[in-house]
């Protein structure tokens, strides 16, 4: 057994940690306050190869493993969840369908710009009437005279409306009981993108409602086989859960670190509040649970890298880190007392950013459903 990271993984973690501390931390609060998408940071991450970590080199990616990818997302989320989800949604949800299901021609055409972070990709699964029940897609795509005609809508779609968004992979009904994946490029006539949605957290990330009105998409934009859409999106979500789990881990670590520092600095009753056992126990519990979570997240990533089944472990890691980050963010805020409730405190931003980790890419209940299925329950 070996719990050590490889020298490369360690260097990737240290590089992203330094980048997050020096480049992201100083602007994170301002980006959040102004709801401003972090174009400059995305460009810098692209230069460093961090917008396409697990994409093979022949398609312009870095050819990194899943553990490295999880480490990078964790380090970003420690400081700024908006940036972390921008990278994670672009990589796991936006770019992966092209890599996994695209033909060589499609991959060569689209991946280099995406892997380099010059363009961003989105994944449009959720609809107003199809959330947890994502298979209940109402959007339709009909093949007419060699083109797809798409009608319907999507909601809460990350990265769909930035200035550098390339397009979105959507699921659509292509027949009775038949779901397929289609690529819709930004600017396609009939494809409408709403203004940015106003959110409780992840405020510097881009979230949109999409509408399709007789939107005409080339026949060649079908990803993989017709009718494979349901199986495809389940596979994408399995992988995506590792990066959302890494976000939960990173956010918990970031919140813990803020609470730890504050507890040692803040004095009441003539001594630092970190000398009170009640505060110490809170911090001890946080550190313990974070340690457990780290093991779960890295192991799920490692299983994937070994080519072994990982879906059960990924769902467990996503569920655990989602709920853990809620406990840690809440306790960390309480350690800050009234200062934690103020908008300008860093912990308040982490607290707001945390909640969606229990909703996006499958709610806690959906994770439990997935885990129960893996346990063999009917």
């Amino acid at each position: 057994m070996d719990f050590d990271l490889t020298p490369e993984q360690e260097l990737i973690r240290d590089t992203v940690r330094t980048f997050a501390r020096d480049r992201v931390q100083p602007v994170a609060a301002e980006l959040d306050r102004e709801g401003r998408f972090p174009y400059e940071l995305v460009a810098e991450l692209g230069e460093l190869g961090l917008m396409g970590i697990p994409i093979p080199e022949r398609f312009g990616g870095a050819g990194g493993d899943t553990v490295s990818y999880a480490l990078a997302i964790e380090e970003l989320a420690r400081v700024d969840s908006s940036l972390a989800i921008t990278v994670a949604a672009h990589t796991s949800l936006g770019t992966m369908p092209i890599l996994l299901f695209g033909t060589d021609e499609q991959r060569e055409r689209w991946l280099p710009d995406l892997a380099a972070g010059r363009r961003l990709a989105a994944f449009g699964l959720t609809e107003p009437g199809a959330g947890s029940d994502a298979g209940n897609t109402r959007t339709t795509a009909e093949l007419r005279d060699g083109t797809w005609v798409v009608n319907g809508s999507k909601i809460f779609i990350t990265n769909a409306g930035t200035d550098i968004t390339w397009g979105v992979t959507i699921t659509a009904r292509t027949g009775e009981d038949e779901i397929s994946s289609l690529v819709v490029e930004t600017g396609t006539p009939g494809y409408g993108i709403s203004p940015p949605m106003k959110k409780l957290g992840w405020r510097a990330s881009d979230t949109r409602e999409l509408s399709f009105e007789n939107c005409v998409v080339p026949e060649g934009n079908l990803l993989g086989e017709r009718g494979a859409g349901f199986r495809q999106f389940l596979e994408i979500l399995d992988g995506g859960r590792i990066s959302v789990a890494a976000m939960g881990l990173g956010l918990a670590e970031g919140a813990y670190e803020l609470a730890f520092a504050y507890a040692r600095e803040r004095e009441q009753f003539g001594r630092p509040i970190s000398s009170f056992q009640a505060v110490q126990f809170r911090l001890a519990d946080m550190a313990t649970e974070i340690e457990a979570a780290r093991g779960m997240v890295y192991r799920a990533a490692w299983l994937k890298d070994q080519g072994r089944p990982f879906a059960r472990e990924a769902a467990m890691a996503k569920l655990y880190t989602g709920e853990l980050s809620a406990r840690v963010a809440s306790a960390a805020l309480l350690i800050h007392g009234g200062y934690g409730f103020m908008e300008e405190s860093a912990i308040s931003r982490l607290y707001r950013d945390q909640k969606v980790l229990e909703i996006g890419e499958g709610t806690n209940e959906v994770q439990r459903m997935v885990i129960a299925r893996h346990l063999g329950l009917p």
Partner: protein
Amino acid sequence: MKIAVCVKQVPDATAAKRIDPETKRLDRSGEAALNATDLNAVEEAIRLKEAQGGEVVLVSLGPERALESLRKALAMGADRAVLVADEAAAGSDLVATSRILAAALEREQADLVLFGQASSDGDGAVLWAAVADRLRRPLISQVAALTTDGSTVTGKRQTEHGYDTISAPLPAVVAVSDAINEPRYPSLKGIMGAKSKPQETLSLADLGVDAAEAGEAGSRTTVLALGPPPARGESLKIEDDGSAAQKILDYLVERRLL
């Protein structure tokens, strides 16, 4: 142009530093990193190479595990690394260290040898002078801007009164300050490629340096005793309630410091 960069693995800036009372040496077992200004030297070397072509080779004296830290500089873009790792070199002082590094540099015959201005652990800020002397090469230190036309090197040197601009014929030795540039982050491609770059580990024998000339045996200084710095004298803490400036002024006047 061939550029050699001398880099040192030091305890990580965030780690608490401890001196082993037994050996009277710095405990180097904790988290480690490349010395910060050495990254400026590496960055400058890579920029020169990118502009004019050539090779960047890292030269370091340190324990085997220093290779981990050299990897970072390789990931940034250096071409290969030479590490002198030998039990007999442990405990080397300035004289012994400069002897070993000079021997390693003789082997490389670089046109330009770059150093960081000072290490964060030993903090001698003098090793480059000793090495330049042994190599009989001209030296420019505290350099905040550097240019070269292939036959001379010109450094803008930061001093208390402004800048000195000094030129020297190549081959030369230059120590750079942290003002010279902003070291890049290694790219993911760089990180993944670092492993396959040549990394040589040499012993003292490989360099033809006698073990008696290295380590404590080859050192001209002996650490006799170590102690904590004397406790800080009486200090006064002033909390600002609007009158802090006046209180500080009064304090200084009272002590006839103003």
